[in-house]
Structure formats: structure tokens, C-alpha cells
């Protein structure tokens, strides 16, 4: 099934992307811009949703046609956003849980600041593994 859409980004405290991964493989350029646009637009919805619940996981906060944006807001002000095509809540929740753990480890690195981009290959690899396991 090549039509599955999955893009994952981490947005830092000051609304700048610090990590982005396309979990589906190469695609049309145009669609990529659309995905980034949808994710960007979803940030406002995230800002509203994060005050409405005590949970870190905010479920699906925004949608555009058949593109769904699920979000996870960390207490540190970073937001994990996943663009997908409407899959089950459990998988997405598990995925965020795992990536959050990985993200914490990155944040504990003394050479990392909240605004530096995450370029670690290990992190990238582990995020992909987590996606394969939980979102498959």
C-alpha cells in the first residue's frame, strides 16, 4: 500500500521545526509542500487543544481532506506532530510514547539545546524503527 501518508515532525519551543522525517519514502514534491503546510496550519489547533486536556497526547487536532494531524505536546514546549491518513488512535499513541522517550534522551545530551536541530543518525533510525513497529 504505497498511498499511506505519514510525515512526522518535532516543533521546538519557538515554533521552529527541529526534526522532520517522511516515513513513507520518496514522493511527489508538491505533496510534500502540502504536508508541511497542513502541519504548519495545525500548530494553531495544537495551541488550543493543549489547554483543553491534562494529557500530553492530544489525539487528532486538525484535518485537511484526508490528511489527519495528531499531536503530542511535551511539558518542555516542544510538539510532536504526525500527519497521517486516519489510522487508529492506539498505534499513534504508542508511537508518540516511544518517540517521546527518544526525544528525552536527545534533550539530555549536553550539546543539545531546545532550538538545535536533531541530526543524530541514531535518533533518526530509532524513530523509523518505532514507526515501523507501531504504525506499520
Amino acid at each position, binding site marked *: 500500500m504505497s498511498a499511506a501518508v505519514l510525515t512526522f515532525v518535532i516543533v521546538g519551543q519557538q515554533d521552529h521545526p527541529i526534526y522532520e522525517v517522511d516515513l513513507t519514502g520518496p514522493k511527489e514534491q508538491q505533496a510534500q509542500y502540502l504536508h508541511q503546510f497542513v502541519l504548519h496550519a495545525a500548530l494553531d489547533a495544537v495551541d488550543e487543544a493543549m489547554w483543553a486536556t491534562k494529557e500530553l497526547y492530544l489525539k487528532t487536532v486538525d484535518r485537511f481532506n484526508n490528511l489527519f494531524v495528531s499531536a503530542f505536546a511535551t511539558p518542555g514546549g516542544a510538539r510532536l506532530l504526525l500527519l497521517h491518513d486516519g489510522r487508529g488512535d492506539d498505534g499513534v499513541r504508542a508511537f508518540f510514547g516511544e518517540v517521546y522517550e527518544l526525544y528525552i534522551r536527545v534533550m*539530555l*545530551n549536553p550539546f543539545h539545546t531546545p532550538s538545535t536541530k536533531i541530526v543524530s543518525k541514531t535518533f533518526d533510525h530509532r524513530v523509523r524503527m518505532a514507526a515501523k513497529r507501531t504504525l506499520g
Partner: protein
Amino acid sequence: MPPRPLPQLEQINAEIFTLTYGSIVRQLIADFEDLDEVNKQLDQMGYNIGVRLVDEFLAKSKMGRCSSFREAAEVVGRQAFPMFLNVAANVTNWNTDGTECSLILADNPLADFVELPEEYKGELRYSGLLCGVIRGALEMVNMDVDARFVQDMLRGDEVYEIRLRLKEHRAEAFPFKDDD
């Protein structure tokens, strides 16, 4: 020589320790902007710790006097490292004269969570403090040694390896008799 049981020491949270050390290294890099200088500072800080820590070690561990460098290195690896860092270091790779050896650490609590940025991988001796500690401590017991990291997992090696080289053993100049 079998390792003795460790004395009961007050312990602190390992993450606090690791993160504090990380912040120190970061601050040094920000202040000196020169990795050579940072390495020197870390070594100097370690040395200052070592010259004090040796007293603490000898007092708490109730160790007797070491008769040779070989024995001293074993004590450093088998007693001092577990006591202060909660990891044991294997002492291997002796040269034929018994003046050089390697301390092999499979785990280094200083470097938990750390991933070096590419631009630091060449020069920065992240855990260089440990070398300074060993140098300072052994100097206080009349052994001038040279300690440096030759393998570092942060740079992609398999283990942490500290190479120790005995430069001078000044035991003869010691003014007291050992057995009174």
C-alpha cells in the same frame, strides 16, 4: 588480589552527576572556544580532584600500600573506579616492563546521553577529567604517570580505554619506613 567489598559512601543520583559534568564541559567550550584549551582545563580540574580524592580513597577503602605500579593500577581499576564511579575498569595490555597498561571501561557514567557533534569529534576529550584524576591521585602516592584516552566510545570506538604510562616511581625518596 580479589576486590574488597566497597565501603558505604553517600551516593548521588547518576543523572544529576552526568548532567552536571555535561554542563561543565559545555560551559568550558563556550568560555574558551578552543578545544585544546578545554582539554587542558578538564585535565587540570581532574588533577585538582585527584590530589584530594586520593586521601578520601585511602581513608575510606582502608587499603594498604601498593608495592608496585602493577598493583596500584589494579587498585585504581578494581577499587577506586567502582567506589567513585560505580563501574569497574579492567586492567590489561601490560607492556613487558610493567610500566604501561590500559584501563578498559565498558561503561562511562560521565558520558551517558552524550553524543558529540561532528565538529568536536576530532579533538575534544570529553571524559578527559578522569585522566587528570588518575594522574593527580597517583602523583600523591609517588607515581608520576601519564594518562590519556586512546579509545572513546563517543568517537565511535568499542570501549573506553585509558592508557597509563609510569614515568617515574619515586618510592625510594619516601622518607618513612613502610613497616613501622
